[in-house]
């Protein structure tokens, strides 16, 4: 019993890692908290649903995030870049407007009823884990989450572009003066962040059903993660995502009455103690 709950917590935590790394990347470069991130996740999931219906899941896994990446680059070029000198709250409100537009778009195209995506046949079996049978697909989700975490960390730490991203997150003006094209860099990073939201969506589709409320559920959990972890901190977000996944999963079993509010209680306590989050906010 405990094994399966820990395992489910890990699965949800892995999904949150993919979501929140996108949020944190975009915040790091553009200082924008993207309120539309959950809607982009939802859009990715529904796009994946349609693509998987026409071909198969694996094509959807590649094509949906690719479409989202293009959307992200456009969002940066014709949104965040034009608004970069404006008050941060202005940009937040623009992303909130975008959220409303995307929600309406998704409801208009795909309707309000719940839809589901089949897990690919190759992963449609169960694995025995410490005497408990767990679906292989969820193991794959954990694998995706860990790959994103490790991949992003290595990329930021060791590649030249990663160095530019870290530099630009710390001080965009000085970085631009050193000859780095920060606009192109930001477009790429916002594209990557949006693609990660889309990836989270298509990965979540086979184990969470698709519905118009899927975006608000996940965006609120993601906000808890990035606020607790420290805005813009990837490492903080990774740890907070895993902790929140566990809290959600274990809370639902052992403290069912308060499980819904448990994450928020933790968040409030941590913010009273450290107003800028665990890793400290880089504002």
């Amino acid at each position: 019993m405990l094994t399966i709950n820990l395992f489910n917590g890990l699965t949800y935590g892995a999904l949150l890692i993919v979501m929140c790394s996108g949020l944190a990347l975009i915040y790091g470069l553009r200082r924008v908290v993207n309120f539309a991130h959950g809607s982009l996740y939802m859009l990715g999931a529904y796009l994946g649903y349609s693509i998987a219906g026409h071909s198969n899941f694996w094509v959807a896994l590649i094509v949906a995030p690719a479409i989202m990446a293009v959307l992200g680059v456009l969002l940066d070029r014709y949104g965040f870049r034009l608004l970069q000198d404006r008050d941060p709250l202005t940009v937040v409100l623009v992303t909130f407007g975008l959220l409303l537009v995307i929600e309406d778009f998704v409801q208009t195209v795909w309707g309000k009823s719940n839809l589901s995506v089949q897990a690919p046949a190759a992963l449609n079996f169960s694995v025995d884990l410490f005497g408990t049978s767990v679906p292989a697909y969820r193991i794959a989700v954990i694998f995706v989450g860990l790959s994103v975490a490790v991949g992003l960390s290595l990329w930021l730490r060791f590649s030249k572009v990663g160095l530019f991203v870290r530099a630009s997150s710390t001080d965009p003006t000085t970085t631009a003066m050193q000859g780095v094209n920060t606009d192109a860099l930001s477009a790429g990073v916002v594209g990557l962040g949006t693609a990660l939201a889309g990836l989270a969506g298509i990965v979540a589709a086979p184990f969470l059903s698709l519905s118009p409320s899927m975006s608000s559920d996940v965006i609120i959990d993601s906000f808890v993660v990035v606020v607790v972890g420290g805005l813009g901190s990837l490492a903080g977000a990774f740890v907070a995502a895993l902790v929140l996944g566990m809290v959600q999963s274990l809370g639902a079993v052992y403290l069912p009455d308060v499980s819904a509010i448990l994450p928020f209680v933790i968040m409030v306590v941590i913010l009273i103690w450290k107003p800028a989050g665990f890793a400290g906010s880089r504002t």
Partner: protein
Amino acid sequence: MSIKQISISTATALGVGAVVATAVASGTVLSLLTQATIYAVFAIGVGLLLRQNGMVSFGHALFFGCSGYAVGIILQMQLMSAELAIIATLAGLLLIAFAMGLVMVRVPGVAFGMLTLAIGQMFFLTASRSRGLTGGADGMNIEWPNTLFGVSMSVLTKPGSMFLLCWTTLVLVVLLLSLLLHTRFGSITEAVRDNEERARFVGIRTLLPRAAVYALSALVTGVAGLLSALNTGFVSPENLHWSLSGVALMMVVVGGYKALWGPALGAVVYFLAKDILGDFASHWMAIFGVALITVIVFSPTGIAGILDRVFLGRRLARAHHH
């Protein structure tokens, strides 16, 4: 604005309300206007926080819903009379919001907005899931007595009188707030908003005034929640949902937050637009989303800002002409 101007515009506004309440015969139009007025009070609460504190709340539905639930629960348990319940709810809301404010306003910038969203959603989930007291996702009926403050309920719930009550409340809220912001409290909160560090240098304690603005904005929104509870006789988790906070915020931005009455204008525009859209109303999210983005990008001070510029421009032109 001088005190004389304030009294004239208050008297005019009250008169307009009385004329509308008697002249408009259609119950549908009156109930639409009543709704717009209730949301105007709600939006003024959200706008006050932005105007005096520079903070954007994405979770003010918390106070809108909670005041309705508080009165509903008190009346259901028959703890006190309805009049006392109203007063106790507002006083309790003010105190709790002040205590919350002491913690919340320390959270910097955008993280504050995310925190308000999360806390609001926490109460939404709690209200939807707790079956016993609040009726869960179905909501609860509010057992109002037959008379309230000496007025018979059957008179009060007529469309005309309900509109007049809500409109008068709106006018009084704007009046009291503009008087309050004319005092030292107004100048202190503006100084703190513009530069907290500098305000601290000149010897102002910054935490208390900011928490006080937060509490005041919660109180105004709570008043709107009570009006809604009186108007519909019903409260449900929908009153706590984040989309409601979002709609109120949209009214603030579209109406313009720099003027105290800007958010009220936004509320009226919102309801008129929703009514005119008619068949397209199912796409209201996309339409208002685009409207929000357009206003924010091209006129950050909202419709109130545009009006201000137009009238200021004319006045300047006239002065130039003379």
